[in-house]
């Protein structure tokens, strides 16, 4: 049997149900924390988040993933630039590229615009696969994605259990990244298989700031005697996974997905400072974190503007915030070396 077409997804605004219903596998492209950035990618993208430059490096390189199409979300300036660049490089063997451009403030006009965007996305996916979903396809895709949502809930429960969870932050992040890149049934397996018991004596921390395209920083961090029990970035707990809408046709499903879009929390680049600060505190408290760690990599500007407000909000809750900004693969080990000690000094003693 011919494998299902694969649609690469950059960003966190794509409802996977729309992709699955058209018979494609959504594969999130997150880039990587470290690794080379090709000269051509650097020239085209300029001063963007280097993680995005690595996505372009990969897409232009000899080991580019086999994709039938690419969907790029306008959920950060770096991703939008990547879309513009990919559109210009259409004659370079880049598969068809499509933009998803979602407004953030909910009102009647933005709901209409978002619905048009989801409808166009679904039509694009159908053009890629040649499949026009009927009622059963919509239902099947909803069921598949709902199963992912259930597995996600189970993972969160295991991760956040107190006094000590049974899944480390590293294992959880890896499961989330895997789940975002495979078909729903495989995503469920990945989420349920996540295990790697953390040290019960370690500090429970919530991570805010930049998103994490791979587990490198979590590994380095958890070596320092902390466990990441939650995060508010869009490759971790905020990944748009497991959202399903029951319906027999495109209009009904997209309407439900638009509502879901405006209900969810987003990454820093498209959120207000107030939203981010509030989300940071709520997430940390819900997860029983003892402190918050803000990790901001060099080239990722938006989180820098949230930090002062987050510190104020967390301070009011008696929650310490430790910041490390300008992180690069070269300086990260030194930057994280004393993080556990600083958290403890600032009041984040283990319970």
């Amino acid at each position: 049997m011919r494998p299902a077409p694969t649609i690469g997804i950059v960003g966190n605004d794509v409802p996977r149900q729309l992709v699955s219903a058209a018979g494609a596998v959504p594969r999130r492209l997150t880039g990587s924390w470290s690794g080379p950035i090709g000269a051509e990618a650097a020239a085209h993208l300029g001063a963007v988040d280097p993680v995005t430059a690595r996505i372009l490096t990969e897409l232009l390189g000899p080991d580019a993933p086999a994709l039938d199409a690419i969907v790029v979300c306008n959920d950060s300036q770096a991703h939008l630039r990547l879309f513009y660049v990919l559109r210009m490089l259409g004659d370079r063997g880049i598969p068809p590229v499509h933009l998803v451009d979602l407004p953030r403030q909910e009102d009647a006009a933005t709901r209409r615009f978002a619905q048009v965007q989801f409808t166009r996305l679904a039509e694009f996916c159908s053009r890629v696969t040649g499949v026009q979903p009927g009622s059963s396809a919509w239902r099947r895709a909803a069921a598949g994605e709902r199963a992912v949502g259930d597995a996600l809930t189970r993972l969160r429960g295991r991760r956040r259990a107190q006094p000590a969870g049974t899944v480390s932050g590293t294992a959880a992040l890896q499961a989330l990244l895997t789940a975002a890149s495979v078909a729903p049934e495989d995503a469920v397996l990945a989420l349920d298989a996540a295990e790697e018991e953390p040290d019960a004596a370690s500090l429970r921390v919530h991570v805010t700031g930049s998103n994490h395209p791979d587990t490198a920083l979590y590994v380095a961090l958890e070596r320092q005697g902390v466990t990441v029990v939650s995060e508010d970035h869009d490759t971790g707990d905020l990944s748009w996974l497991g959202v399903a809408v029951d319906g027999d046709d495109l209009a009904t499903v997209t309407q439900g997905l638009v509502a879901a879009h405006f209900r969810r929390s987003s990454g820093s680049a498209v959120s207000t400072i107030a939203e981010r600060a509030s989300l940071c505190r709520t997430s940390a408290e819900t997860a029983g974190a003892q402190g918050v760690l803000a990790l901001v990599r060099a080239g990722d500007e938006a989180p820098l503007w949230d930090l002062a407000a987050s510190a104020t909000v967390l301070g009011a809750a008696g929650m310490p915030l430790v910041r490390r900004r300008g992180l690069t693969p070269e300086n990260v080990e030194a930057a994280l070396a004393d993080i556990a000690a600083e958290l403890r000094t600032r009041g984040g003693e283990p319970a």
Partner: protein
Amino acid sequence: MTDGRLDSAVAATAYQREWFQGLREATAGGAPLAFVNADAPHEILRAMGIPYVVNQWWASVIAAKRMGPASLARLVAAGLPDDSRQYDALALGAQDLPSEEAPWGGLPEPSFAIAERGGDVTHKIFELWGRRPATDTYLLSRTAADPAPAGWWADVEHRWEDVFGADRIDLLTAEIHGLIGWLEERTGRVLDHDRLAEVMALGNEQAAWNRRTRDMLAAARPAPVAVTDSIPSVMVPQWHRGSAWAVSAARRLHDEVAERIERGDAVHPDERRRLMWIGRGLWSDLEMYRSFQEEFGAVFVWSMYLAIAADGYARYGEDPVRTLAARFVGLTDLLYVPPMSSSWYVKEALAHGVDGVVHLVADDTPGASFITAALEERGIPVLEIRANNADSRSTQNARVGERIAGFLRTRVPARG
């Protein structure tokens, strides 16, 4: 050689100073003031009689007065970064400078801050304006340039639905209606749509004068006007767009340029290299633009300010609010998103007969490489400089003057 400044530049600058002092007096008397980003629909404010200050203009004043570093230091003191979107953020930092240090006596506290949600950070900066005790913030969506047709300048005045796409215009139109209601609620004033139509018509008239001026300058040899003069002559009226004064200022610039061409005036009598400056103005070092004339006979004949005023602003339509949405929905895209941007810069470079291009690439401008490549493909050498125009630390690090001199020596041969 013409050493004298353009009367229109002197007049525009003087008008702006006088206007600003009048603004300070009016706001001291309780009048509302709006602080807006360049891409926000100013015409609504003008039609409602609400004075406004444009963020980018105010940032240029702060930078020109060399108060950029002090303003950025204020951001740091508030726990905010000083190395992110400095051009958008300077004014926020400057607002906390002691009044004796603030340029032109300082910006009165605005009642309204209005911006589109462009990029990752601008909306956060305007959110912070909204946390100041006297200021409320209104944010509009910024949709992406999809579609992005090349050759837009031939269609954008009338066939803007095709250029930008109806969905984008629908959204911004609805949001501008929302802004109108928001302002009406807070000021007790009511927008007169006939007045808005008048403001739009004046804006189109202003753009038409700018187009004639740009076309004359493109054809003129040698260049009769320094860009450091044409920039204030165009941009001060741009921030008063839709007023009778702005139209008369645009016409005055046109007439003065025509007179200079007629007289055979030249910025530099021995013009041997014609240069184009792509990117935002280097406000902290305007002298730089004239510093290559003596040694290289190199004259900057083009900046985006007059050119986008000529090609980017005019919109004609029946419904003034929808037409206004069409003016702003993709204004920045025209300058920065390929192929819209790259095709336009090539058109302008060829029309102006430039021998070389200095391309200042800011952190937040996408597609710069495609602009450079498109120009180079047409045989026009390009020097790319990556720096922030509003942050003198950044431009010093980029060694702008030194690199331009090297570029002229090695890649831009003098005309015979």
